């Protein structure tokens, strides 16, 4: 008997013209690991919410859902709470109580368990998830990754036999995300819990999924093993193909007749096999050469021996940071959590004042600028959470707010807004409420708002957080257009793949300072761990292939000869 069976489910939100789900039929076996993927707005979340009665949205519905052979609606609330676990996107808002230990027990309290059972279950979960060291802490002190792990642990304490996870890692950095997904995998393997996971980071989940369901426009587009899904998406030239893991994309880019690799390990083996009979004449792409560090007075942004700490007795966050960003380039700073990357951006836009060292904007010390002068036509920053910028009911009103105290006629302003909206591809979203947009759309709307400062230097803090590969490509196009107009972009990011593909220079940030700066090709081919999947997969054959495109190109060149 299937664990979940959805039979011909059609659902329409109230007052919506389009069906959110139409004729969805799927069946999920016990102990299966199923990945649900699709572009934002394809109905993933709506479908997953239907698998738990309390979370089911209101609207018009036909079709039925069976849980363990029983109609889901007839399964009691208590039983559903205990047996079906649901983890949502936002790690912060899901937490209810103020202490870690209390949060772990929250579900058990609601189920009316007695002290003894609760003690045992909580202890068990704290052990299994390695929470022991932060068991007594306040939840406010935890990192995003720890919070999401706590959410999962708190649900696992109720011993569910099915886990539903709705993009659980979209707000986490790559290392915390990998950690979280490994834990989910471990639960699936060791406890046999059924896992239904929606995710846009397919690199991580493809190798562990038993089955992948692809959704588009509220319909199930395909349903198969990861390998065959890859094949199908490629054959159909779907937008979703951009989200496939690097080894798969390289495989299809080269057009091999061998078996498709899923992981980097398989990818390496495949590449060796593929080029077995080919003599490697060219093992590297032409190198554009070192990036030259411009003089501080010619640089768009220059930091000179900057030291900063948040409080008098606190440790230094920036420890002699020096950096110079050439004009008209996309400059990326990568590095781990808590190394001070975001603080560095804050010193550049004047929120944090360094106690030693100089910050130069366009060759002039930042202190010499007046606040209005700095943010009008010079500098602007897009924060990590685009939501923190929206003030009004519609995107358009929000954009108008930006220009409220700028001189100029209404016609000029309108033109300016339209220009920015076109650049950021938000023309179609102008009348929507900012909170109704998807993560990628919100980001673009926020970017449009920031661009109304007409900055010559744009600062981006983790611009790819929470958005899927499809939207990342769009973001890259927008940044390219800005660059063509002469703007300089400085971004800090965890997203190695994005930086490798689109940045002009990459810097490694560690322990409060910049360790090294180079072109992406040189930078990533020197690293062995902190580098792209394409590079890890091809480093035994090629010297400086960093992006998927590089590997495909080198394969093609060598095969021709």
């Amino acid at each position, binding site marked *: 008997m299937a664990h979940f069976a959805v039979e011909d489910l059609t659902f329409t939100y109230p007052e919506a013209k389009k069906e959110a789900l139409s004729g969805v039929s799927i069946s999920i076996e016990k102990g299966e690991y199923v990945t649900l993927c699709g572009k934002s707005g394809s109905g993933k979340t709506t479908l997953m919410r239907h698998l738990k009665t*309390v*979370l089911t949205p209101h609207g018009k519905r036909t079709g039925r859902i069976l849980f363990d052979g029983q109609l889901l609606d007839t399964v009691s*609330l*208590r039983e559903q*709470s*205990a047996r079906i676990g*649901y983890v*949502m996107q936002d790690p*912060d*808002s*899901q*937490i*209810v*109580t*103020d*202490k870690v*230990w*209390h949060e772990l*027990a*929250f*579900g*058990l*309290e*609601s*189920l*009316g*368990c*007695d*002290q003894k059972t*609760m*003690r045992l279950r*909580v202890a068990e979960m704290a052990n299994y998830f390695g929470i022991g060291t932060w068991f007594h802490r*306040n*939840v*406010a002190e935890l990192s995003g990754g720890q919070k999401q792990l706590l*959410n999962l642990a708190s*649900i696992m304490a*109720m011993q569910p036999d099915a886990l539903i996870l709705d993009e659980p890692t979209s707000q986490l950095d790559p290392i915390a995300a990998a950690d979280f997904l490994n834990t989910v995998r471990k639960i699936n393997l060791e406890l046999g819990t059924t896992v239904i996971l929606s995710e846009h980071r397919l690199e991580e989940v493809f190798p562990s999924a038993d089955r992948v369901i692809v959704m588009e426009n509220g319909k199930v587009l395909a349903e198969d093993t990861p390998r065959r899904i890859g094949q199908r998406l490629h054959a159909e030239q779907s937008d979703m193909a951009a989200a496939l893991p690097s080894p798969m994309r390289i495989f299809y880019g080269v057009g091999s007749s061998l078996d498709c690799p899923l992981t980097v390990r398989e990818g390496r083996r495949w590449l060796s096999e593929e080029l077995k009979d080919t003599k490697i004449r060219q093992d590297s792409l032409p190198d554009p050469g070192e990036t030259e560090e411009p003089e501080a007075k010619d640089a768009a942004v220059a930091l000179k021996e900057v030291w900063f700490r948040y409080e008098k007795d606190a440790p230094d966050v920036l420890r002699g940071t020096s950096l110079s960003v050439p004009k008209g380039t996309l400059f990326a700073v990568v590095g781990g959590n808590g190394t001070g990357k975001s603080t560095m951006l*804050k010193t550049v*836009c004047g*929120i944090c004042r360094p106690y030693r060292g100089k910050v130069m904007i366009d060759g002039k010390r930042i202190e010499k600028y007046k*606040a*209005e002068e*700095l*943010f*009008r036509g010079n500098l*602007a*920053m897009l*924060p990590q*959470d685009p*939501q*923190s*910028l*929206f*003030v009004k009911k519609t995107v358009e009103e929000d954009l108008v707010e*930006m220009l409220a105290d700028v001189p100029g006629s209404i016609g000029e302003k309108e033109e300016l807004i339209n220009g920015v909206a076109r650049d950021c591809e938000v023309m179609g979203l102008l009348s929507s409420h900012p*909170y109704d947009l998807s993560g990628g759309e919100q980001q673009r709307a926020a970017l449009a708002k*920031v661009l109304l*400062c007409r900055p010559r230097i744009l*600062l981006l803090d983790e611009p790819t957080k929470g958005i899927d590969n499809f939207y990342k490509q769009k973001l890259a196009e927008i940044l390219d257009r800005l660059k063509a107009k002469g703007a300089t972009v400085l971004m800090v990011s965890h997203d190695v793949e994005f930086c490798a593909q689109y940045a002009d220079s990459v810097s490694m940030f560690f322990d409060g300072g910049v360790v090294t700066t180079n072109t992406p090709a040189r930078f990533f081919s020197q690293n062995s761990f902190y580098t792209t999947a394409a590079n890890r997969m091809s480093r035994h054959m090629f010297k400086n292939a960093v992006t998927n495109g590089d590997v495909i190109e080198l394969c093609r060149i060598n095969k021709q000869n």
Partner: protein
Amino acid sequence: MEQGFGGYHPAVNFIFFAGAILFGMFFVHPAFLLLSVGLSCTSYFLFKGRRGVRLLLGMLVLVATVSLLNPLFNPYGETVLFMWMWGRPFTLEALLYGLATGGMFLTVILWFACYNEIMTSDKFTYLFGKFVPALSLVLCMVLRFVPHYEEKIRVIGGARRCIGKSAENGTKRERLESGMAVLSVLTSWSLEGAAVTADSMKSRGYGSGPRTNFSIYRLSRRDGVVLTLLAVCAAGLAACMLRGGTEAVFLPGIFWAQGPATALGSVFYGIFLAVPAAIQIGEGITWRILRSRI
């Protein structure tokens, strides 16, 4: 504070502080006052360590000021020390009365400071959650939301400053408008978050039937022993108080109760108040001995 006195059951902690603060507010008899001042200072120092010295010194200044100022405004009393300001008397009784009031202030404030160190929010919610379960959940959700919103306000303020929309140097009206904008972002952002929190609660069975309360505290034997000791001392002290052993009058003439009720009462009071300090010191000694044996 999970060691020493703070490691005891929340009920022990709470009863001690309730008693200490209540008694501290009523007793102005010098013997009792000396005990409570001495022991509250000792306890505070033991809980806080060196960091506590600053508050202690500050408090001493306050007491000195209160006791010296009192006679300036209070001309009553039999023993005139000297005359000042066109013949206003500065009396010994008023000075002593000021000293007693200052001492009372000192102990009550110090006990509250100790209470803050020991009674963390989860102990309080645990104690009172039993009587009003819904209230205790609300309380700990509030404790979660306050830092959560503070953080959000910080993020919003930062985001607006980065696009030149802060009105730090602006006029009053601009600052007000900017404040309203932050508030509006916070409201819609929080409502969004609150919807998720509600879903997360429902999804984990909140409201699906009767609820129980989880706690990480256990009433152990040593808690029982200390609780009994506190109860015996408090009862003894109350008896002595009824016998008039704690009576003290300063104005217009001085009368301080003396005799067996006072003596016995101060013994009980001393033992009661010395409990946390004794536990704290005892634990320190035990550790030193254990370490020296290694």
